[in-house]
Structures are given as structure tokens and as C-alpha cells.
């Protein structure tokens, strides 16, 4: 009896749990680990920013305009006499504060819509897919700028619009999966035993069809952070003195040709680091969730 149990324990696949896979992946994919580390560091900074910043991010020192980096102001001061270091750290709050809810909205719209269109098919599916494809003729960045400019300047608008504009990514991924699974035995069995559509979609299909979509979450977060900063750079959505990277780069832009580089470069580097962190993490997540890519890496 004991031998039999031992045998069963051994037969357990070695990379069964996601946790163990994560460790295995961390060993295999340095990229993903570094990406995760960067995102975590920024996340912690965002959480504790008010405790660690040396100055109020919108406090004005009228006697210290455009000072280069020094011991008192590590990243220098900007044209308003605000401390760039404090502002760069504090801005991490806006990055996460926009990206997290925006991606959540994308998922909350995209996943159910993908399940429904893929499973139901027919007219509803046709119209949804056609609509999403038509939107592809517009550059997303221009669309985001135009929509936010038209609907008014508020952080809530920025979050909603980024979330909505990006939801087709999830619709497509989930829909494609559902289309493949729709005629599989387990779905047929679920239908035959009289499960309502709602249950088939959200119990039977949900977990089986969203792996690819989940792998995209980090990449979409990277995109959300980028778009938010771009909007702010063009003065749309987030107003000027707000400590936000894009809006700080906007202010720094006018000093680039005259050499006060620190005003724009530090927020820009912070922005790139976080976006890169998300992208690297996303790269690793895709390896984790996509067996084809995993096989390719070996």
C-alpha cells in the first residue's frame, strides 16, 4: 500500500502548481524576474511615497527656480521651483492609480464580451467584431487624445477611456479561445446536463479560455501607463502642476534645447523604467501561460 502511495506521489507532474512554475520560470527567465522586481519597487514607492519624499511635490520654492541637481535637491528643481525628486517619486502613485483600474476595466469588459461573442456567435458576434475591427483604422493614441479632449479633463475620464479603448485586446484573445473550446467534449457535456448559458460561460469556459488574456495583463498595464503619460504630455486629462511623469516631461520639454535637462529627463527615465518593467514581466508571463512559447525557450 505504501509503495502504491509513493508511486502516486512520484507520478505527480513536477511543475504542477503555478507557484512552483513561477520559481522555475524565475530560474529560466531572468527578464521576467527583473521586470517583476522593477514593478514591485515602483509599487512600494507609490505606496509609501508620502513618507519618503523630502519635499511636498507641489511646494513652490520661489528662490530656487531651475536649479541643477544638488545635495538639497537630488534631481534639481523645475521652472516653478518644485523639487523634481519628490515629484518623480510621488508620480508613481498616478501611474499605478491609473493603470490598475484601467486594466481592470479592460478585463471586466473584454473577458465577458469575449466569452459571449465566442460562445453565441451570430449577429451579435458579427457586429462586435466588425465594430472592433473598424476601430483599428485609427491610431489608438490619437483616438485616446481626441476622446479625452472631447469628454473633458478628469482623471476618471482618463481611466475609463484607457480601459474601454484597450478592452478589444481581451475580447479578441478570449473569443479566439472560446471558439476553439466551444465544440469540445466538456462543453457539450455541460450543455447536455442542462447547465444554463451563464454557468457554462462563467464556470466552464472562464478559466479555460482566459489564460492568454491573463498573460497580457502586464503588457496592457505597460500600455496604460504610457498612454496616460502621453495624454498628460499633451496637456489632456491631467492638468499641469500635478506630479505626473508625462506632465512633468511636458514642462521639461521647453528646457531641453536650453540645457536644463533634469526637469524632463528624470521623470522620463522613471516612466521608461516602469513601462519596461511591466513589459519584461509581460514577456515572462506569456512564457508562463503559453506552452508553445515555453517549449521554444528550452
Amino acid at each position: 500500500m505504501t509503495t502504491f502511495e509513493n508511486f502516486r506521489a512520484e507520478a505527480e507532474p513536477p511543475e504542477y502548481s503555478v507557484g512552483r512554475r513561477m520559481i522555475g520560470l524565475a530560474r529560466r527567465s531572468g527578464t521576467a524576474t527583473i521586470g517583476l522586481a522593477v514593478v514591485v519597487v515602483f509599487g512600494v514607492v507609490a505606496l509609501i511615497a508620502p513618507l519618503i519624499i523630502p519635499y511636498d511635490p507641489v511646494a513652490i520654492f520661489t528662490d530656487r527656480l531651475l536649479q541643477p541637481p544638488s545635495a538639497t535637491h537630488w534631481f534639481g528643481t523645475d521652472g516653478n521651483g518644485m523639487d523634481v525628486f519628490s515629484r518623480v517619486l510621488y508620480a508613481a502613485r498616478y501611474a499605478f492609480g491609473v493603470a490598475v483600474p484601467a486594466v481592470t476595466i479592460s478585463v471586466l469588459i473584454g473577458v465577458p464580451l469575449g466569452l459571449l461573442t465566442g460562445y453565441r456567435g451570430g449577429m451579435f458576434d458579427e457586429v462586435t467584431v466588425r465594430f472592433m475591427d473598424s476601430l483599428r483604422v485609427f491610431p489608438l493614441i490619437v483616438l485616446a487624445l481626441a476622446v479625452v479632449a472631447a469628454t473633458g479633463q478628469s482623471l476618471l475620464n482618463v481611466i475609463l477611456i484607457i480601459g474601454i479603448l484597450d478592452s478589444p485586446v481581451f475580447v479578441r484573445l478570449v473569443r479566439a479561445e472560446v471558439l476553439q473550446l466551444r465544440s469540445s467534449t466538456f462543453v457539450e457535456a455541460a450543455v447536455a446536463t442542462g447547465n444554463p448559458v451563464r454557468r457554462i460561460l462563467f464556470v466552464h469556459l472562464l478559466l479555460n479560455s482566459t489564460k492568454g488574456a491573463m498573460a497580457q495583463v502586464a503588457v496592457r498595464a505597460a500600455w496604460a501607463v504610457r498612454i496616460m503619460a502621453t495624454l498628460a504630455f499633451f496637456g489632456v486629462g491631467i492638468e499641469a502642476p500635478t506630479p505626473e511623469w508625462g506632465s512633468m516631461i511636458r514642462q521639461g520639454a521647453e528646457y531641453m534645447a536650453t540645457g536644463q535637462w533634469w526637469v524632463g529627463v528624470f521623470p522620463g527615465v522613471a516612466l521608461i523604467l516602469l513601462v519596461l518593467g511591466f513589459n519584461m514581466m509581460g514577456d515572462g508571463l506569456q512564457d508562463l501561460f503559453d506552452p508553445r512559447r515555453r517549449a521554444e525557450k528550452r
Partner: protein
Amino acid sequence: MNVSRFLVRRLLLVVPLLVFITFFTFMLTRLGGGDAAALISGPNSTAAELDMIRAELGLDEPLLTQFWIYISSAVQGDLGVSWVNKRPVLTDLIERLPITLELLFWGVGLGALIGIPVGLRAARDHNQRFDQVVRFFSLLGFSIPTYFLGLVMILVFFYFLGWSPPAMGRISLMITPPPAVTNSYLIDGLIAARWEVVQSAFSQLILPVIAMAIIAAAPIIKQTRAIAMDVLSSEYVRTSEASGLSRRVIQSIVARNSMTPIITFIGTELTALIGTASVLEFIFAWGGMGQYGLQAIIQGDFSAVQGYVLALALFSVIVFVVIDLVVVLIEPRADMSA
């Protein structure tokens, strides 16, 4: 089915798309209920004045009537008048379009020239040092905001190194522009045989084109690598390897068979890249359609925004049709009935 019939069918499919696009762009600017009349007349106008302006612009009509007026005049080539500079939007767009296309052409061209060979090589040596370095830089390329890249290039190459002229437009202010033929100073300078024009236009082009190429190269590399990897694992490549063809021959087989999907990809990418070009125009004071459009968005100049977004969509639609046509022409296996 011959090519011209294919083209006709493809163009017929575009018509409903264009109607949708026009409707969408129209609604876009009406979404938030921003008041154009208030924008035009300024803060000190009376309610009666506002009503008069609204009536003049047709803003007091129901939305669907407004849309009908817009689309029926759009078909006749009237996209309305910019409320900022009082000029017809269509004239402004047509004048500025070649300027944007010039930047897009050189930038994406250079990006593809770098991206395709690099992607092919990364696929060949996948998981080796070269591939890993390329993958990182491609991720970095995805992560750099266009405007920031442009600004840093100005800082480094204009301010610190002094290699490039100030980023103020497409030609030095000291030089009188050549007579406009194509609106590209580079080509117009050649036509007018004025060397100093060509030289100045070229040196102004370098920075934005390189920035454009960097942004364009990242997705091209990533996609080329993926496509070439697929081709590499195909059976005809395995057969070629097994029958002892040299590495070089196999490389060229892979390259040739990857070309169609790569061209298709670059075509679809152009939709996003013309947005990138717009942003770069803004940074480099380029004065093309992109800068015009972004300024219109910021200033709330609705007619201009509509015209600009419509032009971008039209551009994408045309590119999609052209790409389909190119694929049909170069790819004997392509199915023309689709």
C-alpha cells in the same frame, strides 16, 4: 478571378467602413458637449450671440441632421472650416499631408531596413546572445515614449553635441523655401536644383527620422523574429536542411518565405505609426498634418479634429487595400476570392 475584379470587390467592402468611420469621427467631437459657439465667440458674448453662432454653424439642428449635412458635404470635398485659422480643413490637410508622409516614409523605411535583417538573424540564432540582446532592445523600444525619445535626441544632438540644427521645422529659417511642387523640401530642392535647400532639409530630417525608425523597428523586429521562427520550423525548411542545402541558401529561403507576412504586418503597423509620426511632428515643429491635428485636438477645433481623424482612417484603409493588392501580386498562393 483577376486582379482588377479583386480590387473592385475590395473597394466595395470599404464603403460601409468609411460611412462608419465618418459617423464615429463625427460623434467623437460631439460626445462631451463642449460648446463650439462659446469657443468661437469668446467669454464675453451674450446668449443671443451664442445662439446666432450656433445657428450659423448648424449646431442647433438635431445630431442626425448635422451628421447628414456633414457627410453629404464631406463627399463633395467640404470638411468644414477650422474655427481657429478660418481656413477650409480639406485645403489645410492636403497641403500638410505630404509633409507627414515624408517623415513616415523615411522613418518606417529605415526602421524596416534595420528591423527585418535583425529579426531574421535573431530567429536564426534564437536564444543565443544576439537574440537575447535584440529581445531586450526591442522591449526597450516598446517602452520609450515617442515624445521623450524626440526630446532626448534634441537634448543630446543639438544641445550637448551641437551636431544637429535646432528642431524648428523642416528647413533652416535662413533659407527661402523652394517653389512648392511636392511639399517635400528634399525633393523640391532637387527639382529646383538648389543644393543648400537639399542639405538643410536633409539635416533637419535626420533626428525625427531616426526617432521614427527606432520606434518602428521594435515591433518589426519582434514580428519578423516570430514569423521567421515559424518558417524555420516548417517542413520545407526541414526538408531543405535534410537534403544538405547550405546555411546561406536556407537563410534566403526563410527570408523569402517570411516576406509576405512581414509586409502585411508593416502595413497594419502603419496605422499606429502615423500616430507616432504626428507626435514627432509636434516635438520637431514639423508643420505637417500630424502637428495640425494634435494642435486641433488640444485647442478643441472640432472641424479640424474631424478632418484629421478622418484622414488618418482613410490613410489606414488605403494602406490595407494596397497591402492586400501587393500580397496578391507577389504571393502566388494568395486567395483572391477572400
